């Protein structure tokens, strides 16, 4: 699921980063930053260097974001999809939200076993003349090796905590972490091999065509142009040679009760 409402997204983001929200209207958000967020968002490294060197208490800044870009407010900073500030926040999230180890929040009064799942959100990029991307969210049960697609949709329905709940204990994985990872990747690669890649054929054809045009232009006896020709030819390869890249957006281990674990597979 993509971001449905930018304002709510930002609110959750600053809350999750332990910032106080000073003002929250439908189109305006004022935030008291923490030291860490100030360092990251406000771009004043010298200030923080100085503060740390002298062992002082830093004074983190405030930020006001206007989620309606047409709002005329002198103090606020308009934020919209594509704006540098939002890109900066997305980049921070890339690092901040990368690795998890989470436990299902349950209230139990007897010993309860939790099943470990490795969950990976994976981006597959098809890069040629153009670029296309797809996201896969795959989970593998580290006890029995069962795998499911779009696991994120299921995880969204459950409450998670970074600490293991009382009376719960972790089952030890039978499939090691790295093997679990490999199984997911192999699944994706197998799928890729079974797909027709018209885009790649098209891109390859385009590459050949561009090279032909280049040849036509360098039909000259003078040897001085060989270096230039080579450079251009390489640039064409770099631009059009088809490539598939698999990268992990984020992921980690989710410990869940056996019944949740079973439901995952049944859904």
């Amino acid at each position, binding site marked *: *699921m*993509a*971001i449905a409402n930018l304002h709510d*997204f930002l609110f959750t983001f600053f*809350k*999750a980063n332990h910032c106080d929200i000073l003002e929250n209207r439908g189109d305006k958000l004022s935030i008291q930053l923490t030291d860490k967020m100030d360092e990251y968002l406000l771009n004043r490294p010298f200030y923080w260097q100085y503060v740390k060197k002298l062992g002082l208490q830093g004074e983190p800044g405030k930020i006001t974001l206007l989620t309606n870009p*047409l709002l005329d407010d002198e103090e606020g900073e308009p934020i*919209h*999809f*594509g*704006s*540098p*500030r939002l*890109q900066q926040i*997305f980049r921070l*999230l*890339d690092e*901040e*939200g*990368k*690795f*998890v*180890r*989470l436990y299902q929040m349950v209230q139990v009064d007897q010993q309860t076993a939790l099943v470990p799942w490795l969950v990976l*959100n994976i*981006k597959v990029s098809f890069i040629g003349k*153009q*670029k*296309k*991307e*797809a*996201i896969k969210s795959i989970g593998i049960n580290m006890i029995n090796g069962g795998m499911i697609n779009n696991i*994120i949709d299921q995880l969204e329905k459950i409450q*998670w905590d*970074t600490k293991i709940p009382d009376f719960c204990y972790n089952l030890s994985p039978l499939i090691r*972490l*790295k093997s679990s*990872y490999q199984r997911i*990747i192999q699944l994706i*690669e197998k799928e*890729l091999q079974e797909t027709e890649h018209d*885009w790649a054929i098209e891109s390859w054809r385009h590459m050949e065509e561009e090279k032909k*045009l280049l040849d036509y*232009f*360098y039909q*000259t006896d*003078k040897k001085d142009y060989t270096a*230039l020709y080579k*450079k*251009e030819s390489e640039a064409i390869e770099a631009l059009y*040679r*088809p490539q*598939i*890249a*698999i990268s*992990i*957006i*984020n*992921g*980690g281990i989710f410990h869940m009760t056996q019944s949740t674990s079973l439901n995952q597979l049944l859904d």
Partner: protein
Amino acid sequence: MQIDLKRDVDFIEKLDQKVKDDGSFSSWELFHLSYQASVNNLTTDFKGLRSPTLLPHVTFLTHQLECAEQVLDDMNGRAILADEVGLGKTIEAGLILKEYMLRGLVKKALILVPASLVNQWAMELTQKFYIPVTTSRKRPVWDQDNIMITSIDTAKRQQHKDIILEQNYDFVLVDEAHKLKNHQTKNYQFIRALQKKYCLLLTATPIQNKLSDIFNLVSILKPGYLGDYQTFTEKFGKNHKTLEHDAHLKQLIQKVMVRNRREDTGIDWTKRNVETVWIDFTAEEREAYNNLKEITEQSSHFAAITYLRELCSSREACYVSIKKNLLQENKENKEDYAAFLKCIEKLPNHSKALKVVELIQSMNDKCIIFTEYRATQVYLQWILQQNGITSVPFRGGFKRGKKDWMRQLFQEKAQVLIATEAGGEGINLQFCNNMINYDLPWNPMRLEQRIGRIHRYGQTEDVNIYNFAIKDTIEDHILRLLYEKIQLFQRVVGNLDAILSDLQLTNIETEVEKIFQESKTDGEIKIKIDNLSAVISNAQDYYEQEEQHGNRESS
């Protein structure tokens, strides 16, 4: 064919290490936000734009969307946008920039536009595209991630230049890029030296003169793409006609250039009504005109013709300029001129100015008046005010802020904007659809620019253009023999400058002046101007045929 596969090697190692070290992990919220952001930034389709759905308040035209898609999908963000004037190149550029920003591919951009257009660009990008921009004011900051709008002249100043050249830009845009056609200029070398990933060059006239123009533009985008300069010129010479005849070259250029013409856009352009308003001099004015003509015929000074033109515009314009010249030099027929000045001092209001008042009172709508002369501008403002008509002046020499202010005053308060020639460039006045050419420039290009101010994309009304000319004067010749013959008012704005430079007629004004100066009789003037317009008109026909030929070939 072979597809390379690139795997992620980092993630699992790091995760494994973290588990072993019992390190710190993210919360569910941050994990989930990060996933959402990734979905949001995903390019789910090989083709297609994402910004139109995010910008529902803007209606994009089909050719603008297609242009943006073509640049993004086929040209990898390095292109010449060469639509004809008024088709919305700014919109196309804005769309492309926004798409790249949405995909997270552009964070730092440099937008180089004429100084007079800096504010207009800033307004369009913020209001239409929600792109936060910075304009270079007193102390521009170059070394941050931002979308900076400035002029080439500011950017290449010594105190800025070095730091700008150190920056790594994701996106560089140059408006009015035809000014870069000469690779020996400082501007050209500056643009070439910028470190840039994506690059857009905007111009309505990609080939102004010779094929090497396009070679130089393309070399900014893809150095070496058309080979080297020497080989290129050897192969294609300097004649521009070859472009249509060399399929290979054409194909290459089509891969880096988008050019839409009005007729291809499929949009209903509002109509352009052109009316010539003929005016008779009063007996007194006629006498003064003939009098001046006699004096000027005695000397071949080039200013002599100017005096006649000025008298057709206003007594004031003529007076100021004769007076200035008389003071400066020791002139022949000084006494004659002095006597003439005495005589025109007594003239009542100019017939043409009275006609303007009459016309504006009858139209009861906003109107732009263009004149060639400052003195006429002042005089017109005065006479309009005498008749209870509000007006604001506009000159090229105004500072940026004053220009914006005048434009706004015109839009909100005044009925009339009186502009001198230099004001013709660089502001868009689509909210007005009446234009009076109070006097005609002798360079058809400038007339095209005037019309382009109001008859452009965004104009919703039919455009009325009134050309004022006084019968049996120098104006009469120009209008009948030059403008009507080349059908400037009927033809769509576009390739005239290319045609003129093709004919080596870049300075048509001097050409016409020469004709007036060197001809002994009115008959001779007529024949010569007639010949001149015939040449232009033929070239126009030829050009249009070529373009049709070219279009067929490309489709």
